[in-house]
């Protein structure tokens, strides 16, 4: 059948099982938009308000569904607007295919109107990218793009397609021959020798600890993780993106590690004699000072990306492979074990951690602490919502106070820490999982970076709830200023718009919350509305996320919450 390049793009998307495309049109991608209406019965297009939003939506969609998210934009400014979203997906290993229009091949390199070298720009922030200048290359490039995005360590792939390639016609049959990617061979399994060495370390350990990361969910290894932890009685610490890898109510699940991790978890890491790192990459935010990191432990590291092994932390057994496959190999050799002394020691640390926890303080009635608001949101949603955060203090409080029982229920920008991610990603999440209750928990700062997507949520009637944790500050930066820069609050206080009126201007139902008492009813109200809602929580302005490991400090040298007597009326003024 004779098809245009533009039609071939849509045919390929359908073949790849794409249900939804987040995009924004413009000159160089116009042929593809022109061809779109023929396909709209099979694929949905969501018109965003900024191309960054398209990439974050595709990202949220990909993280919740495990499928490849697709974003589309025009050349030049459309493509460059995608850069932040692509880099975000790259750092968190999210499979995306970004399709950009490009100026006609005849004028490539001439600084034509809206020409930009987007394959050059995205070279270091994509897993791979393609420049397609001929209709015949479209289908092969898109097939490879989807394959590369979703296999191995997933990541974003950009396909830049010139306008003339979109307009050219060819006799099209969807190619079915095997993909020719001789240089692309993701690792899969461990060698028997590696398994043997890992098992020996596990059997000999007295204080073992599993570090579970995003890779647990990406390889679908939750069941194997649970089985190993239970059988060998090994406690599990989670990275930020690893939350959901194991139910947080499980007695062996200790919670989050790292800069704002629970003190007990960091203490356990520093005292362990064996670390089993699964699908995580020893980011500086989880290790603190590398020289003093977990000094007494042997280390087993399983990751799909061989270059992560021995990158930051030297390990004794490094296995490049798919985590689930490797755990399946490992499990038959792991006997029942027990570590009662170790687990008791950790319980003691946990009790001391709980002692200092903010949720054990009763705030005076006129104060609303963000941590309380988030804990109440957890309760009011039955702990079962999919929570998408932005970046800042509210993100860390969410990680600490919204507990997760199921995989893929915390979605957050970990590696890049992209402000503006939360709200658009939540739209993508809801569109990918319509049956889920979705809450975006965002800061007043980050929300304002992408709040134009309120119009998208309204136009598409996306039933997503936005909790703005409004502290009238770039709170996390203010915290650093308080701790490390002599309390000089330069460029962090914010005069914000009236968020309720703002939402209403977009036709979105909105409410404001000032006290804890209002929260359950407000959440119920938000859930009762079939469409987007915005809830502004006006919280304490100068609050602190505790504990905190200062950047580069030893993991157990945490700044802890000061110990005020219980129920001190206003402890926040004493720190």
């Amino acid at each position, binding site marked *: 059948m004779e098809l245009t390049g533009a039609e071939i793009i849509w045919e390929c998307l359908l073949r790849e099982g794409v249900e939804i495309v987040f995009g924004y049109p413009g000159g160089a991608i116009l042929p593809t938009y022109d061809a779109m209406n023929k396909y709209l019965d099979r694929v949905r297009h969501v018109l965003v308000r900024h191309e960054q939003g398209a990439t974050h939506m595709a990202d949220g969609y990909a993280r919740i569904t495990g499928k490849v998210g697709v974003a589309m934009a025009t050349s030049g400014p459309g493509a460059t607007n995608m850069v932040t979203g692509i880099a975000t997906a790259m750092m968190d290993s999210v499979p995306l295919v970004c399709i950009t229009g490009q100026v006609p091949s005849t004028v490539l390199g001439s600084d034509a109107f809206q020409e930009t070298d987007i*394959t*050059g720009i995205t*070279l*270091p922030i994509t*897993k*791979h990218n393609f*420049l397609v200048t001929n209709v015949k290359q479209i289908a092969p490039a898109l097939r490879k793009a989807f394959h*590369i995005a979703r296999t191995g360590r997933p990541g974003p792939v950009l396909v830049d397609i010139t306008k003339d390639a979109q307009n050219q016609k060819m006799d099209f049959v969807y190619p079915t021959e095997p993909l020719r*990617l*001789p*240089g*692309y061979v993701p690792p899969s399994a461990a060698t028997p020798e590696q398994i043997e060495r890992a098992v020996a370390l596990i059997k000999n350990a007295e204080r073992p600890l599993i570090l579970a990361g995003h890779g647990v969910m990406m390889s679908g290894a939750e069941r194997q993780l649970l089985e190993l932890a239970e059988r060998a009685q090994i406690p599990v610490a989670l990275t930020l993106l690893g939350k959901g890898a194991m139910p947080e109510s499980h007695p062996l699940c200790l919670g989050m590690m790292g800069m704002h991790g629970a003190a007990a978890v960091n203490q356990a890491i520093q005292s362990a004699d064996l670390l089993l790192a699964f699908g995580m990459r020893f980011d500086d935010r989880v290790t603190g000072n590398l020289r003093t990191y977990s000094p007494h432990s042997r280390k087993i590291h399983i990751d799909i*990306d*061989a*270059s992560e*092994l*021995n*990158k930051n932390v030297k390990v004794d057994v490094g296995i490049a492979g798919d985590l689930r496959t490797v755990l399946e190999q490992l499990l038959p050799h792991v006997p029942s074990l027990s570590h009662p002394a170790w687990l008791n020691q950790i319980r003691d640390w946990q009790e001391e951690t709980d002692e200092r926890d903010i949720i054990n303080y009763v705030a005076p009635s006129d104060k609303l602490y963000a941590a309380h608001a988030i804990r109440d949101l957890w309760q009011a949603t039955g702990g079962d919502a999919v929570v998408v955060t932005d970046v800042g203090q509210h993100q860390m409080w969410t990680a600490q106070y919204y507990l997760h029982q199921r995989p893929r229920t915390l979605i957050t920008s970990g590696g890049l820490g992209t402000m503006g991610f939360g709200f658009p990603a939540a739209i993508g999440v809801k569109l990918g999982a319509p049956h889920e209750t979705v809450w975006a928990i965002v800061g007043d700062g980050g929300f304002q970076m992408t709040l134009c997507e309120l119009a998208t949520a309204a136009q598409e009637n996306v039933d997503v709830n936005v909790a703005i944790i409004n502290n009238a500050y770039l709170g996390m930066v203010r915290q650093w200023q308080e701790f490390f820069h002599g309390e000089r609050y330069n460029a962090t206080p914010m005069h914000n718009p009236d968020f309720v009126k703002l939402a209403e201007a977009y036709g979105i139902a909105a409410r404001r919350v000032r006290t804890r008492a209002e929260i359950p009813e407000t959440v119920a109200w938000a859930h009762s509305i079939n469409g987007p809602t915005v809830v502004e929580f006006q919280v304490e302005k100068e609050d602190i996320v505790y504990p905190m490991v200062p950047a580069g400090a030893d993991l157990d040298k945490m700044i802890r919450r000061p110990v005020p007597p219980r129920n001190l009326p206003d402890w926040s003024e004493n720190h």
Partner: protein
Amino acid sequence: MKHTLVALVENEPGVLNRVASLFRRRNFNIDSLTVGRTEDPNISRMTIVLDSDVTRVDQVQKNLYKLVNVLQVYEITQQPSVSRDLALVKVRASAEAAVVASQFGARILDHSDGLMILDLSDEEGRVEQFIEALRPHGIVELVRTGVVAMGRGNHIVRAPQFA
């Protein structure tokens, strides 16, 4: 310590750029990088020399493998191998310079306008000695290709599916 990596890459536009971009982004310091054609028109071959005191060889190797167009990476440092660096050196024509050239087995490619172009292809260290020996005689212009290397005998570098 100096290490020599040989990478076979798909002969596609932009591959050299991808490798260079990787080195820059990962803060890998490279002594030299050469690229050229091979017995297979679909495959180019890169020789990468780096110093393991500055840059981690395992990380370079693993990150090269992450590039979709990189087929195979070999570390040939420990293998019996030969290597060549080619230098063209333009010096003021003199009997002394000609003596140095003949001592090192360099050829005189050009002799005009009172200048000579000397051509030496040898191991990197010897090329360096050659250049040092010429320096007192007035080097006007100098270009080197960077190192290319090849394993001896049955130490053959070949992409597996073409083997």
